[in-house]
């Protein structure tokens, strides 16, 4: 009961938070003055007329970081249950975790040596 009740309230909290933000935007939409004109609604750049679309291709190096992030984040998720039960498992868990982390550190060293971490 303790578990289900806690997560139920959390779900309600997320819904309420979204509702709070939406209510704030709606209130301002009701009360704010509306006087649009062509120049006001143009994209803010250095004062000149904007040229072209802003959705350009961006650098592939960002994707490299995203891939690295996925690998290490999954590692972190695997480590959470290990951390919680660590006390009960003792030496075996310690050695297992060290092996697990070392494999991933090996991956980090590989990426490092391949210069993917270099910001060009």
């Amino acid at each position: 009961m303790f578990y289900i009740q806690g997560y139920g309230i959390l779900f309600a909290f997320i819904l309420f938070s979204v509702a709070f933000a939406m209510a704030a935007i709606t209130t301002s939409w009701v009360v704010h003055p509306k006087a649009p004109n062509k120049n006001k609604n143009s994209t803010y750049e250095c004062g000149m007329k904007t040229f072209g679309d802003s959705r350009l291709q961006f650098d592939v190096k960002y994707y490299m970081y995203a891939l690295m992030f996925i690998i290490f984040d999954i590692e972190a998720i695997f480590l959470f249950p290990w951390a919680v039960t660590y006390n009960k498992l003792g030496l075996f868990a310690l050695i297992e975790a060290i092996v697990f982390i070392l494999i991933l550190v090996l991956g980090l060293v590989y990426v490092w040596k391949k210069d993917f971490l270099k910001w060009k």
Partner: protein
Amino acid sequence: MYELYIKIFEYLHIPTILAQISWPVFPFIGVAAVLVIVVIFLVLLERKLLALLTVRKGPNRVGPNGFFQTFADAIKLLFKEDIMATNTNKILFTIAPIIFFAPVMAVYGLIPFSESLIAINAAAGLFLILGISSISTIGIILSGWASNNKYSLLGGIRGTAQAISYEIPLVLSAIGICVLAGSMNLPTIVQGQSGGVVNNAFLNWNIFSWNMCPAAIGLVVFFICSLAEINRIPFDLPEAESELVSGYNTEYSGMKFALFFLAEYAALFIICVLISVLFFGGYLSPFNDYLSLLIFKNIINSQIVLNLFVNIEQIAWLMLKTYLLIFLIMWIRASLPRLRADQLMNFSWKFLLPLSLLNLFIVAIYRFLFPL
């Protein structure tokens, strides 16, 4: 409280299912009030403190010493025209501030402000806080992309790259705390830091068994990463005023901008509370007993009143620790210049990540030598 609420419904012969559904509204109202008050106060504090550190006066027109400046700003933002440029993606442009703000607000319910003042006592509290608050990153990249502005897109991409890079050392040093406490439940983590390690009156103080002692490296890593997560100086590349004109929220105005603003300060508060809960013993006092217990133990006989005093004192201790950290972060803002993009990425992947793994190793060895 929950039982009392159910009893009222039973007494009035209303189906209790309505009570179960409507119950979360009350903690939420409390949380919303805390959030708004905290943010209004923090904005004023930051402006006054920055003024003090740069030998200016700061806001001093509205109310005594400019005390009501933030209220004036909030009302102004509510009544400002909400400009939406013609070539933005209208739907995403409106959704982005909501996605940025809502997770930060939901996380407030998971924080233990005192022994009995916690809205959601979830078993996986720490995990949920880290997970839910990282949803905000989607809001950053969405607002950058939807704005269709070069500044915003750059700010959004930078913000996302920075947030995911610093997420990993942050989470790994939080795992160190899970190892120390043997739990992800925040009240359990706090209780695990209470004293009583050795039989010595002085060394028995709580302060010597706070997690900051075994996880000192983790504390440093967590603090630096949280600065980056909430885009504070020196890691404020996504919203660098001087080059990107405040980055992903360049195009925003009115209430949508206010939501970004609100979420940033709310996140600043939540991250400082989290650091004090994880590393500085949360609501525990640094001594071996609560001061109010020492003072009132012989005067007040009623256990309930005594409990109330203890709870108030716990909130005071937590706020003291939190505001010291907030002061430190604002001081850093006044003192340090901004990092370069390549320095930023290298610092996370080549320095903080190995350091956080080292911290995890040290903490695991510590827990192995001194089991719970």
